[in-house]
């Protein structure tokens, strides 16, 4: 039952209770304002018009078609720009297409890959909104009312989505409306102007052709037979008649599109992991043609990372070959990052001296290590982090090319044996041990035995003992015992050296350090 209110201050009349949909008595449409839920929603629909072609990695310069069907019944589904230039069109038979372009490359439609791509893009859209819904085979729905402020308004949001998806290699058409169906229809029809208010829906949906509603062929034909080609004309038909002729679900479709009935959508469940792959149209014998594909995969990973507020610190890139084997390329980072240009730079560096063992037919990318961003791993940076935000990136860049062990830091160890009083360590780690400014700044890896007899050691001339002896005798407990008398010596050439006389075992003088 409806209730009337005395005062109405706002532009929109106050809400009324939703009327239960009665099976009989369709003659009166429920009022537009009956459902408040959708008034506060704003849906952005994405229609990926060329998805069957774009699932295959980017090289689309030549004449390329995607076909569907069986055997000799195969028909062109989508033609690449190169093929269109030669006159090939949708629904042409394959033989006709070959007649127009003898060197045509033909790809079978891959619905599984399309579904996977749609899911990946849905995950990628998570960076813009938490509510994403799949609309297979070629559509995505995103609820954006809550995201408008963050992304600077609807125009800015749409522009960003367009730009980023185009960069990833997908052509899209968008439609914006308060109901999911209306947004989808607008996107399919290619109407860029957004519909922001529910009461404008009938007027804005009216000129759309019925083909963009996704209704079955037989219904469309029947309606066309009655002279009804557009949504507006369909809306003017008597409701009872529509139900009798085609069934209640078509009326419900129109009602849902106009917002007269609620249209709840299944929320897309964002995946926990990131794993993606792309088949290459033409197998690559060298690394250079792989980069656009790799960049595209990294772009998808960026969307995933942003939507989950995560950073990647271990990356696995797989180069798949025709025989099924995969050449792995692993990348390990010092700190989790979502900065794709940096990751791209590291991959370029890693692959710079790479040579392919076999031609590559597909690429795989997975993020093996995911960590929340903004948390510095405590053990790496005990002290205040060196100021530059990207100081970890320098380490990564150096290590990618030189090897992990080639870059390290030093740490003190509380030990009397000089060679054990320090250790190599991850940069930034603090050690405990005693600084000693009487020690030489340079230490030799291995002590060098000195020439000379008795008390007169020689190294570049006769050495003169200046300070010492300092006796170090320790280490009996772990088998590396040390009994040495250390001296500071100088030679005629002006070098200051740290030498010792071995008191046990192999007697003699040794050079252990150089005072820099």
């Amino acid at each position, binding site marked *: 039952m409806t209730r009337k209110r005395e005062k109405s201050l706002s532009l929109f009349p106050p809400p009324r209770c939703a009327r239960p949909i009665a099976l009989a008595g369709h003659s009166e449409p429920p009022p537009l304002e009956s459902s408040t839920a959708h008034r506060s929603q704003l849906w952005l629909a994405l229609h990926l018009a060329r998805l069957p072609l774009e699932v295959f990695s980017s090289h689309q310069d030549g004449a390329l078609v995607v076909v569907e069907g069986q055997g000799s019944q195969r028909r062109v589904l989508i033609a690449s720009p190169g093929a269109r230039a030669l006159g090939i069109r949708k629904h042409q038979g394959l033989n006709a297409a070959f007649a127009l372009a003898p060197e045509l490359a033909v790809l079978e439609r891959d619905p599984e890959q399309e579904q996977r791509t749609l899911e990946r893009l849905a995950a990628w859209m998570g960076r813009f909104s938490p509510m994403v819904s799949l609309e297979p085979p070629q559509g995505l729905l995103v609820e954006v009312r809550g995201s408008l402020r963050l992304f600077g308004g609807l125009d800015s949001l749409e522009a960003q989505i367009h730009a980023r998806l185009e960069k990833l290699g997908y052509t899209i058409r968008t439609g914006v409306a308060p109901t999911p169906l209306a947004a989808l229809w607008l996107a399919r029809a290619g109407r860029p102007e957004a519909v922001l208010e529910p009461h404008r829906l009938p007027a804005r949906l009216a000129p759309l052709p019925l083909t963009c509603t996704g209704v079955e062929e037989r219904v469309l034909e029947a309606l066309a037979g009655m002279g009804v080609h557009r949504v507006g004309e369909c809306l003017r038909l008597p409701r009872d008649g529509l139900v009798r002729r085609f069934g209640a679900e078509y009326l419900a479709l129109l009602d849902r599109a106009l917002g007269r009935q609620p249209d709840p959508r299944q929320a897309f469940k964002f995946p926990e992991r990131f794993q993606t792959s792309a088949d290459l149209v033409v197998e690559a014998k060298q690394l250079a043609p792989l980069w656009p594909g790799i960049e595209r995969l990294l772009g998808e990973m960026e969307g995933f990372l942003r939507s989950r507020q995560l950073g990647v610190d271990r990356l696995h890139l797989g180069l798949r070959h025709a025989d099924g084997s995969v050449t792995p390329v692993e990348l390990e980072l010092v700190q989790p990052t979502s900065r794709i240009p940096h990751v791209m730079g590291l991959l370029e560096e890693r692959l710079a001296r790479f040579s392919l063992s076999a031609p590559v037919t597909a690429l795989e990318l997975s993020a093996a290590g995911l960590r929340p961003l903004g948390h510095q791993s405590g053990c790496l940076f005990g002290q205040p982090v060196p100021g530059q935000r990207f*100081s970890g990136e320098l380490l990564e860049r150096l290590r990618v090319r030189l090897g992990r062990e080639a870059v*390290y830091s030093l740490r*003190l160890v509380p030990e009397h044996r000089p060679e054990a009083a320090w250790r190599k360590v991850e940069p930034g780690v603090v050690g405990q*041990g005693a600084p000693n400014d009487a020690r*030489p700044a340079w230490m030799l890896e291995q002590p060098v035995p000195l020439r000379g007899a008795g008390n007169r050691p020689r190294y570049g001339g006769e050495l003169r003992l200046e300070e010492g002896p300092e006796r170090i005798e320790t280490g009996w407990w772990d088998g590396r015992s040390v009994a040495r008398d250390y001296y500071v010596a100088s030679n005629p050439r002006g*070098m200051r050296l740290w030498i010792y006389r071995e008191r046990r075992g192999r007697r003699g003088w040794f050079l252990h*350090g150089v005072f820099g």
Partner: protein
Amino acid sequence: MNPALEKLLQQPGIWRGCEDARWVSTVSTGYPDLDALLPGGGWPLAALTEIVVERYGVGELRLLLPGLIGLLRQREGWMAWVSPPYTPYAPALAGAGIDLTRMLVVRPGDDTDALWAVEQALASGACVAVVAWVEAVSDRRLRRLQLAAETGGGWAVLFRPPGTLAQSSPAALRLKLVAQHRGCQLHVLKSRGGHPAVLDEF
């Protein structure tokens, strides 16, 4: 420029009046006598310093340490040592006042990788100082290192063997350390905006 002219102008005895005598900034060397000799009163930042030594152990690190410590105190970032000739001994460096958590030791396999690492470290801006020990460097490479130092703003020190004195260099400062019987003698061979000089030190 004409290479013969360039070579002539590199002579220490020629002072070029049009040269800009101010560096962007400097850090004190820690030795007042040396500060007095250098334009700007210290080691040149965002620029290349070349030091030629005949042999190690004559005080070449002692020369740099006060400047390095001062720089680590004033600014944030790493101090990277690339291809040091021996193992840097942590207790001694810590004893001298170096914060070991800010120090990176980089050991590339060869000179090409070493020069690449120096360039990366300088250009990134994440290092306040990069000290490198290299042998053969082409003129083009030296220019690139100078450019990288200007980009990143850090202090770049290159230790070179004596044979390289003849090569002209875009470095802002060129020094030579000559070992004496006690201590060493410091020759300022070239400094942007300053005169060559000799300092009997230590």
